[in-house]
């Protein structure tokens, strides 16, 4: 996918976190998402997780639409990443800074061996309409770094758009259950 400069800060009202459970949620879940969509989305999520675990950063970025955003809120109550503190709130340009840094020969803290393993599951198609899909899922990520391990787990909400190149991410919301805890060291790559 060709790289085009995105808007530096996109305002995405669509970022509202769907209420987990509840009558309406349950009804919508049953109605929306036939098994083909579900399978397609699952494959997409597994592929994205593999890009992270294999450190194929450019391919990871290319899964985002030109105006796509990667967002890890600072707290679960947040409904948008725009204008509020976030752990990540990155468009493709900022993602590209991260990519270039990770690959720089003197990104010193990259010298230690590290790797991650993501497991993505519990995929639920929340909504599907007019070429747009909202999917919820759960992830568990184990990171090995500097001879020790860390665990991060939580939920993803993917706002996906159908394009001629396949599904692309308009917004990925990442809520880690341990997002608000103290961080032993920091996060260098997307979760």
């Amino acid at each position: 996918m060709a790289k085009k400069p995105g808007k530096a800060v996109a305002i995405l009202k669509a970022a509202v976190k769907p209420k987990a459970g509840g009558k309406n949620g349950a009804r919508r879940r049953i109605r929306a998402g036939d098994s083909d969509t579900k399978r397609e989305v699952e494959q997409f999520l597994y592929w994205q997780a593999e890009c992270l675990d294999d450190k194929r950063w450019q391919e990871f970025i290319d899964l985002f639409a030109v105006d796509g955003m990667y967002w890890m809120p600072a707290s679960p109550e947040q409904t948008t990443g725009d204008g509020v503190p976030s752990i990540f709130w990155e468009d493709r340009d900022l993602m590209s800074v991260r990519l270039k840094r990770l690959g720089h020969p003197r990104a010193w803290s990259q010298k230690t061996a590290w790797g991650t393993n993501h497991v993505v599951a519990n995929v639920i198609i929340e909504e599907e309409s007019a070429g747009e899909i909202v999917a919820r899922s759960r992830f568990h990520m184990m990171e090995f770094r500097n001879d020790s391990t860390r665990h991060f787990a939580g939920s993803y909400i993917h706002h996906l758009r159908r394009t001629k190149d396949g599904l692309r991410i308009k917004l990925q919301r990442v809520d880690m259950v341990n997002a608000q805890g103290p961080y032993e060291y920091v996060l260098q790559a997307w979760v």
Partner: protein
Amino acid sequence: MGVDLGLDLRKAVEPDRVHRGVYTDAGIFELEMERIFNKVWTYVGHESQVKNVGDYWTVQIGRQPMLMTRHSDRSVRVLYNRCPHRGALLYGDRSGNVGKSITCSYHSWQFDTDGTCKAIPLEKGYEGTRLSIANPDCSMKPAARVASYRGFVFASLADGGPSLLDWLGPAKVAFDDMCDRAPEGEVEVVPTCFRVIQNSNWKIFLENQLDALHPAVTHESTGRAAAAVEDEFKKNKKDAPLAYHFLSAFATPITSWDGFRTLGYRHGHCILTGYMGLRPRDPDTLAYERVMEKAYGKQRMEEILGVNIHHVLLYPGLSVQSALQQLRAVRPLGVDKTLTEIWHFRLKGAPEPIYRRALGYYNLVNSPSTMVNADDLWNFWKCHQGLSSNGGDWVSFHRNAGQDPEENGVVTSVIGTSEQPMRNQFRAWTEYMGTN
């Protein structure tokens, strides 16, 4: 003393070098808790964290669990977070509102927000004993001293010592510079606190804050990555948002860093002058300047916006970036473990884009996904590991040693990369430790 190394503290700090045990010796760390952290003014929080009567935040001073509360007379109190009955913490969470009273979850002793005991259940059980509700031992113990400056609350666990203002000295500019930049002269906390743990001694972080020699080396990768994307914006005839410059400034070549200045004050406080060009001529800044001019008049506005500071370090526990409205509070957890609590603030009365500037820095440089501190923390851990080794006994602060001009208690640096700030910090350290 020095339990582990049998180190004589008086010989551990020389004018231009420091013994590694000062960073790694658990016995010295205990002495630091007693002689420094249990005595100095420690930043507790901002008054706007406890807006309403009954609001509280838990916080650590030295290794003491403390509680900041808003009392019914609107004053901010700092109390030991400990029930006088059987010693349980009164709050195990980080923040909230006490409701009708501070109530212990163990046996329901109840306290007012100034710590006064209000009720003990089944009080007659104490009849004929030497304990009564009126006994001060039944109330929560307050911090020895509490004071605030422009909304920033500090507490000291010792009765004696300089007042907060005397202790801050000229370094109070940290809060003046931040608050003056608000058209209303005040800031308000944004209630998100990022917490990052460093596996290294607390002094390593403080020394790094004013170390103008490291950015071009440690942060070259991030500086260059951001500069490359800025170039792509330019090629597409667009301006990169100012936040990119927060990162690309690190690509400033090492030879340029001598052009900056550091100032050392009493009690180890220091300042590094600014280098990020935070007064651009874009429409957002110009609109902000119009609001500022209306609030202060042209001359005063120029004075305020002319202050050029990158960091103010309030030794031993606070690093303030006034022009970007953020701060990092340093909480030593152990000799090799340090917590930083990172906050940012809104300038009251300033237009939204000015807040977004602070937010951009908070998200990119100070959040747990930081591309900057990732490499600092890696260095800090490596320093602590190396200092724990037998590969050498001394840490060098020789750079421009003997060339620290001092006038009226203010030490200046001959060049930006002088290790004057570290020498100044150790001067305070030896005073606090009583080994000067």
